[in-house]
């Protein structure tokens, strides 16, 4: 057997070809990250679904604003002067309140004539008073809440002034001392409303992104395993770097998409003028992004492990239950948790991604609390990525589906 001098890697470049840049290339994890992002952004389905979601968000905000501002015109059949006064009062109040609810009285001759008007659809309802002085509002199939509410309030003030005048008093005198101011020791009533809306939004966004991008990670891992590309990749770079690149790439995609959705919603709220409360949401949204990042890193490691254990994408349907449960818990915390439960939830990794920003909206939270919660989430993320890497490294080279326990016992 003949021995020939060592082939220098650079010594047998085909002539004319530029030598590969030594040391000038990017680190492996960065190449993987960039590929994950490129492949996904070039994917037409992803672009379309992102665009559709953006349109839906903006449309939802605009629709809400339109429904809020839409004026209502009610016509009411009456037979007496008292009836006409009540409707006039309601009209006055309605126009004063939000400027666009109008009440119009249609005076007819008799109760039956009034009911005929309702039956014929010419008026929205009939406001009639019987001999005992009791008032009845009669609609055809339903009475709109705007109509009954407006007339009810008007009737109350009408009766109050009539009765006050009868006793020689005034409504102001009668109501003196009856006003109840509301206040909260922590937070404000206004924040409460914002928190419930924002809680739903945070929870839902987290849920969506964690599932969409989580499945993307798992699928991209299982694809490489199924096609055995991973065997070639493993000879070129450490498997660990492959995992880091995937997690990072998809985390970036998720964060960018989330920021786009959130930005679009806030922008639409501002433009439609329904943004009185936006000021309260923005700082919490910022925190939400940070918490989302940490929660997502944990889930990303879990999804990658699930992908490495599966043998086909279909296997993920069965194995993804635990991760889905965790994501649902985060969503549930956003929607339902209150009091002590919410405080506890705001420290549980992943769940805290939704719970802590909501707490911060609801009440005053000392700065150390979100920071502590982030530290806990970061520690959990680091531990899970470390563990995930061990399982991933073993399982991904193994053909076929594996259980977690079996994967832990594997050697490389």
């Amino acid at each position, binding site marked *: *057997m*003949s*021995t*020939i*001098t*060592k*082939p*220098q*890697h650079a*010594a*047998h*470049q*085909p002539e004319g*070809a*530029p*030598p*590969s*840049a*030594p040391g*000038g*290339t*990017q680190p*492996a994890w960065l*190449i*993987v990250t960039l*590929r994950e992002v490129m*492949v996904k952004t070039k994917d037409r389905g992803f672009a379309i679904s992102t665009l559709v979601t953006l349109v839906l968000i903006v449309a939802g905000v605009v629709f809400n604003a339109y429904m809020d501002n839409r004026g209502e015109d009610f016509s009411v059949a009456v037979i007496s002067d008292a009836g006409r006064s009540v409707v006039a009062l309601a009209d006055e109040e309605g126009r004063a309140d939000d400027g666009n609810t109008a009440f119009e009285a249609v005076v007819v001759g008799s109760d039956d004539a009034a009911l005929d008007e309702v039956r014929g659809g010419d008026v929205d309802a009939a406001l009639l008073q019987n001999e005992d002085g009791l008032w009845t509002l009669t609609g055809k199939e339903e009475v709109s809440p705007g109509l009954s509410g407006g007339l009810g309030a008007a009737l109350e003030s009408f009766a109050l002034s009539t009765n006050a005048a009868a006793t020689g008093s005034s409504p102001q005198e009668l109501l003196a001392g009856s006003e109840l101011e509301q206040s909260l020791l922590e937070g404000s009533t206004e924040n409460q409303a914002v928190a419930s809306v924002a809680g739903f939004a945070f929870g839902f966004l987290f849920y969506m992104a964690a599932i969409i991008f989580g499945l993307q990670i798992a699928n991209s891992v299982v*694809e*490489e395993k199924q*096609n*055995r*590309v*991973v*065997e*070639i*990749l*493993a*000879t*070129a*770079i*450490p498997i660990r770097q492959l995992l880091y690149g995937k997690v990072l790439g998809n985390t970036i995609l998720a964060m960018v998409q989330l920021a786009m959705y959130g930005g679009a919603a806030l922008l639409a709220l501002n433009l439609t003028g329904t943004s009185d409360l936006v000021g309260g949401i923005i700082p919490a949204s910022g925190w939400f992004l940070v918490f989302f990042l940490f929660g997502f890193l944990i889930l990303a490691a879990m999804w990658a492990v699930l992908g490495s254990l599966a043998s086909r994408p279909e296997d993920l349907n069965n194995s993804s239950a635990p991760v889905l449960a965790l994501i649902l818990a985060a969503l549930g915390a956003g929607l339902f948790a209150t009091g002590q439960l919410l405080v506890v939830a705001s420290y549980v990794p992943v769940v805290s991604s939704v719970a802590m920003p909501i707490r911060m909206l609801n009440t005053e939270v000392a700065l150390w609390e979100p920071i502590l919660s982030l530290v806990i989430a970061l520690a959990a993320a680091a531990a899970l990525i470390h563990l995930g890497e061990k399982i991933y490294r073993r399982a991904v*080279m193994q*053909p076929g589906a594996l259980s977690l326990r079996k994967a832990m016992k594997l*050697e*490389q």
Partner: protein
Amino acid sequence: MLHVQNLTRRFGEHTAVDDVTFSVPSAKMTGFVGANGAGKTTTMRMIMGVLTAHAGEVLLDGRTVTADDRATFGYMPEERGLYPKQPIIDQLVYLGQLHRMSQGDARSRAQELLERFQLGDRRKDKLESLSLGNQQRVQIAASLLHRPSVLILDEPFSGLDPVAVDSMVELLREHTAQGVPVLFSSHQLDLVDRLCDNLVILQKGRLVTSGSGDELRAAAPRRHRLTVSPDAGWVREEAGVTVIDVAGQDAVVELDNDDAAQRLLTAAMARGRVHEFSRIRPTLSEIYRGVSQ
């Protein structure tokens, strides 16, 4: 030179590769043969570091190979693997970058290889839209992309048509000409005969033999063909002669040594006319068949 030293790998109770030692010399093509389950793929995976060896090591020019060394190796796994839904050029550039090429270099090199395989105009097609033979060519391009310092190819010719085999052979010869050691496994013994300077034969996880063609032929039994008239039947009685086959005037015999050859020739000339007396040069596939019976 790539050297495999006492490599051993077990799967549970089963020892897939048992204390295997052989060399893959630089600038040579080494054929890696053995029945299914002989341990070829497991050995190649250990060389590539995809599987951990339970004992032994892989040496490159006398020192243990590192992950950095392996990143310069070209590898074609038994189970082909690329991204079916990705454009060909994109995945080749990606693999090139992972092998530490710059993006521009990876792209021009991928283009060059695809053109050699007549796939230049399909570079933007998805891999899955190609025929299986063409997918195989892309797989080969992936293993050669980064101008590997060592080539480890598991069944590189399976699934290729004769034209593709020829262009693959040409490519491999270019690499050996530049000093690259090439180890490839194959069940196509005619190809092994045609291409190999060296042979490594495995059987049930153990090394049967390895070495250059000349070394293996020298070690093989010395067979001669004898054609005489009127009849060759008498060779059965000669001492030091093992008859492999006798038919009419022709005989194929195995001789213990050169003396036996001289005696046989003298006897033949005494009995009649000698038309042919020649040493049979065994092909590598015959050697393989001989040792793996």
